[in-house]
């Protein structure tokens, strides 16, 4: 009887461990492709689409080196998104995680798979991520990440051709709190519409990044 119970508990432990460490094979294949990118430099154009911000398109250079956060160099003032510049998903998959298949479908002849990534470690700074994978082209198409500190944000990636692993356009959509400005900072002719202000406190904002002229770092 004792032997049976021991066998039962061992079996349960083994199966639950196996389930926890299960990572989608297609995601692993894409991650392998992304891991092969060591460094690059790319020119970029940045547009801010937030209803209370008016900013002209900015240009700069983005420098990526594996193991370090992406750096942006520009002569202008630029609002650089905190999220969405993790091109190789290095930060997202820094700590152990499991994946759960949500759905698969065909879109424009490509096999698409939607999976959830759930971290196993308390150190991870996201609670759940929904990844839309293009299985046919072996790349990530869209991610929806819920973080513990910075709210949730969506990333939409557009690629230049069927084989590219690095995108030519990234749209990062996020929730942004409408700025609250002390009245003393408002101009003399500025009218405050309190009704509108209350209903307008949380807004969806977006950053559109155009990436062109990828090159290896010298």
């Amino acid at each position: 009887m004792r032997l049976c119970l021991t066998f039962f508990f061992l079996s349960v432990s083994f199966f639950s461990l196996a389930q926890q460490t299960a990572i989608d094979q297609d995601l692993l294949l894409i991650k392998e492709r992304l891991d092969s990118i060591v460094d690059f430099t790319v020119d970029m154009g940045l547009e801010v689409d937030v209803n209370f911000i008016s900013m002209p398109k900015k240009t700069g250079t983005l420098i990526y080196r594996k193991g370090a956060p992406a750096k942006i160099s520009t002569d202008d003032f630029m609002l650089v998104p905190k999220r969405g510049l993790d091109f190789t998903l290095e930060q997202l998959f820094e700590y152990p995680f499991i994946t759960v298949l949500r759905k698969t479908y065909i879109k424009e002849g490509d096999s698409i798979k939607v999976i959830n990534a759930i971290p196993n470690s308390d150190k991870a700074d996201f609670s759940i991520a929904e990844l839309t994978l293009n299985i046919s082209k072996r790349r990530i198409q869209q991610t929806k990440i819920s973080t513990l500190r910075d709210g949730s944000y969506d990333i939409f990636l557009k690629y230049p051709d069927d084989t590219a692993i690095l995108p030519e356009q990234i749209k990062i959509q996020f929730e942004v709190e409408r700025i609250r400005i002390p009245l003393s900072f408002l101009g003399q002719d500025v009218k405050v519409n309190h009704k509108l202000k209350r209903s307008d406190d949380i807004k969806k904002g977006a950053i559109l990044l155009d990436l062109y002229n990828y090159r290896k770092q010298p």
Partner: protein
Amino acid sequence: MIGLVKMESFRLLRQSRTYYALAGVVLIEVVVLLSAYYQGNEIIEILLSQLRESFYFEGTLVNGNLITYLILNSMWFHLPLILMIVVSGLLTSEYKDRTLITVMMQPVSKVRYLLSKYLVGILFSVAIVLLLLVTSLGFSYLIFGKGDLVVLLNGLNFYTQSDAFLRILLAFAAGAFSMVFYAVTSLTLAVILKDVTKTWIVCVLFIVISNVLMKIDFGSELLNNLFYFKLNQSWQFFFYPDIPWYQILMKTSLTIFYTTLVALLGLFIFKTKDID
């Protein structure tokens, strides 16, 4: 007429109060520059604090364009005051020193005589605005450097260096029209009141009341656009993302109309009244 203008210009340049006024303008600029130096980062931090949740900031916004914008904001109250004191002095000092009677004994047309004072007042106002433009941009760029301008008008508006520079130039040009209006008004007040102190007091009251009325919403777009005290802010329109050119044109035309009207009133009173 040219001779009269030259003579009035000479008188203006000989007055010590003219140089006190110039020094005053520069002093106010220095004070704004110093406060901006110490508070600039704090102001920007407050403006952008909530964006820090989603963004990193690359580059700085405390630069010459922001400082010039802050100077513009604070100057449109102080500058009319300085201008009104100096320009009204062109006539009140003549009443005080009784030189006006001597001049009027000469074969000089009363209208041309006062018109030359109005012209000199206008030229002086434009010169002061130009001085403010050159010194504020010069000091600000020299100390704080160039860069993007951020302005809070119905949201956060960012402008590139070249765009900000052009908008600042246009704002100064629009502001010059308002300054000319105040200068002309001060001379008309001098025609009516004659006395130096009385004219200064009324000039100060005029500016204070105008500033209070400017903040009042009259509930009608027409009234809000027609009153002279609402016209003093037209320079701000150049800092909206889409510049409302029609509104600026309307407001500037109205300012010119009011200025002409006030000058004509002064000329009429001066012509019809006897010199004591």
